């Protein structure tokens, strides 16, 4: 699923030191020096011989049907393309495993170690500090040192989830019959707020009058809770619900399937991966309208490759956005109308050329909505 023709897709932006991301010349200069230091002595050959790229998973494990799995897919692909390179992962049973796992890889002399998930932020900071000669990368957040400066041996991989969510919001708005849609969040946090804000903005871009029900389950793992929330939202009139709630989201699919079977025309929107491939089946089709996909695989592949080639993006923030195809809506489009696809693509272009700046927080969203 991951092509290697997009090496330079990611846009390095600098979010350190509070200057809202754009110009990063100075930092890049610094980093360039560092990268050379870091990569001395382990220059890889063409097939990756002698290079190693490994990751530490979140508690979900490499087969969580979500970003851990996606990241591992990227590494596997990298390993296939460069058979000489060594790829591997360590699974964390709970958050207390992060630090030892990261350390274990660093100690083994891994050339680049990925921490998958923003929960590993502090562990990455510490371990990177303790192993200044090793390269690290973290997915989904930006790690800075105690003074808020970027860390030279850490690359930061983030995604414009709000932009992707915006597009599925557009699709939802185009499809709703009841003029009401819903959003279910897992545990409320800055990251999940990006999904929510982007989605709401997308919906309201199409029609500011559409009602949006939102609720946080405050749990990523309680399917029955997810089902109850979805039940309430559907009963309350929403006919399309988007989730960013991990295992809790399974309850949404359950409820949607159930209502489908009893003849109601409801939809669900998946997250992170093209969820229609694995979930949402009912007797006459699939309840998943579309999914907001996040190409963690691609980002991991690319950072590995760059690092192997001596271009480790240390101290940088790589934001994989719409324009890099780092986020977007899923390939499975059987249920999406052509108009919706067209509209979504249209908005996509507007976002890419900067005509629309998608809100990421509640405040930004409120501001954005008022400006409509």
């Amino acid at each position, binding site marked *: 699923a991951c092509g290697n023709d997009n090496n330079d897709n990611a846009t390095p932006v600098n979010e350190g030191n509070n200057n809202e991301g754009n110009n990063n010349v100075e930092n890049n200069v610094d980093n360039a020096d560092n990268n050379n230091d870091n990569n001395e002595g382990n220059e890889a050959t063409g097939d990756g011989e002698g290079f190693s790229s490994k990751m530490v998973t979140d508690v979900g494990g490499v087969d969580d049907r979500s970003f851990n799995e996606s990241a591992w897919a990227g590494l596997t692909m990298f390993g296939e393309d460069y058979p000489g390179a060594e790829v*591997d992962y*360590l*699974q964390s*049973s*709970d958050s*207390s*495993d992060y*630090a*030892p*796992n990261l*350390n*274990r890889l660093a*100690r*083994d002399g891994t050339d680049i170690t990925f921490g998958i998930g*923003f*929960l590993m*932020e*502090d562990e990455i900071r*510490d*371990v990177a500090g*303790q192993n200044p000669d090793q390269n690290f990368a973290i997915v989904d*957040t930006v790690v800075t040192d*105690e003074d808020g400066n970027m860390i030279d041996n850490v690359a930061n991989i983030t995604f414009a989830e709000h932009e992707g969510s915006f597009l599925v919001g557009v699709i939802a708005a185009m499809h709703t019959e009841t003029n009401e849609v819903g959003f279910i969040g*897992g*545990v*409320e*946090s*800055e*990251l999940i707020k990006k999904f929510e804000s982007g989605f709401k903005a997308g919906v309201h871009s199409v029609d500011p009058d559409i009602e949006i029900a939102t609720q946080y389950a*405050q*749990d*990523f*793992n309680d399917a029955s809770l997810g089902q109850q929330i979805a039940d309430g939202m559907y009963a309350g009139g929403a006919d399309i619900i988007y989730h960013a709630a991990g295992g809790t989201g399974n309850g949404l699919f359950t409820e949607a399937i159930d209502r489908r079977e009893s003849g109601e025309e409801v939809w669900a929107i998946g997250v992170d991966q093209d969820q229609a491939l694995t979930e949402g089946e009912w007797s006459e089709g699939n309840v998943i309208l579309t999914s907001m996909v996040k190409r963690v695989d691609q980002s991991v592949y690319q950072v590995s490759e760059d690092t192997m080639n001596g271009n480790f993006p240390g101290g940088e923030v790589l934001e994989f956005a719409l324009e890099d195809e780092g986020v977007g809506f899923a390939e499975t489009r059987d249920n999406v109308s052509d108009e919706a696809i067209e509209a979504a693509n249209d908005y996509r272009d507007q976002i890419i050329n900067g005509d629309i700046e998608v809100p990421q927080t509640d405040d930004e969203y409120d501001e954005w909505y008022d400006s409509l």
Partner: protein
Amino acid sequence: MKRLLTGKLFGILIPLIAIFFGFLAGAIVMLFSGNNPIDAYVALISGIFGDIYYFGETLQRMTPLIFSGLAVAFAFRAGLLNIGVEGQLMVGWFAAVVVGFAIELPMIIHLPLAILAGALAGALWGTVPGYLKATLEVHEVIVTIMMNYIAMHVVNHFIRNNFLESGQRTEFVSPSASLASDFLSGLTDFSRLHWGFFIAIAACFLMWFILWKTKRGFEYRSVGYNKNASLYAGMNVKANIVSSMAISGAFAGVGGAMVGLGTYRYVEIFSSFTNLGFDGIAVALLGNSNALGIFFSAFLFGGLKEGAGNMQAQAGIAPEVVEIIIAMIIFFVASSYLIRWIYSKVQPNKKEGK
């Protein structure tokens, strides 16, 4: 049969045999799944002792387990089953960290104050079920289970709305409230071993001292065994129930403070239970609810969990196998009757000689 083989030696032998059987069971599981148990166990052992870093991490891991084990055991000795250690630990963690970053004080006051805050929060969380048990005879098991959920949601609420710093967590505690130690960390090659480990050892001593050397401890144990006789002997049974739950909660709370001030130095939104408290039930019971036993069983737990990482990295064994091993060890310790029975069959002349 009961008091047949209760020598000191046997008290030590049983856990060792149980551990052996536990590993044997784990080996069978590994064989079944096509792995080489010997490689796995070599990896496991070297994942604990093979590198000073891992050893440091093991000690770091066992620190909160000691506390949660002590908390469970303390209540157990007083006749109460405290399933709420999980929640008490969370509120203790939270309170300690908040005190740790919200105020400025010299270390000599600040650090103890932050730990005390953890103890008090845990104690408060323990007092509720204790009080309901003492006054209304509400079963402590239910209340403590409920209090776990309440703890998680309340703590998350405050973090989210009052103390959110970056992503999911609060800011770091100030150095004057930190248990982290460059010295210990340096000694163990950057592990997160912190001073809390020594506080945990002190806590083991404290629990032993309270229970076995103080007047109050005498009363706790007496109430734990026989409430009626304790009442007849003039003890204030209700006060003892409440205060033993408070102390149990305080142990848990300090355990949380150790993680908060030592290992992480912040508290983050709990997206699920930490399991440190639930593991405490097993640690306590494996350690036969006594301080020294808890120390060793916490070491076993911490070691197995730490070594599991290496087993995975070196031998490709799924970390769940360690959980199976732990379960089997607990089974065999609990079923020490079996071991005694086998022993008595193997050495029949010993029995006759008695």
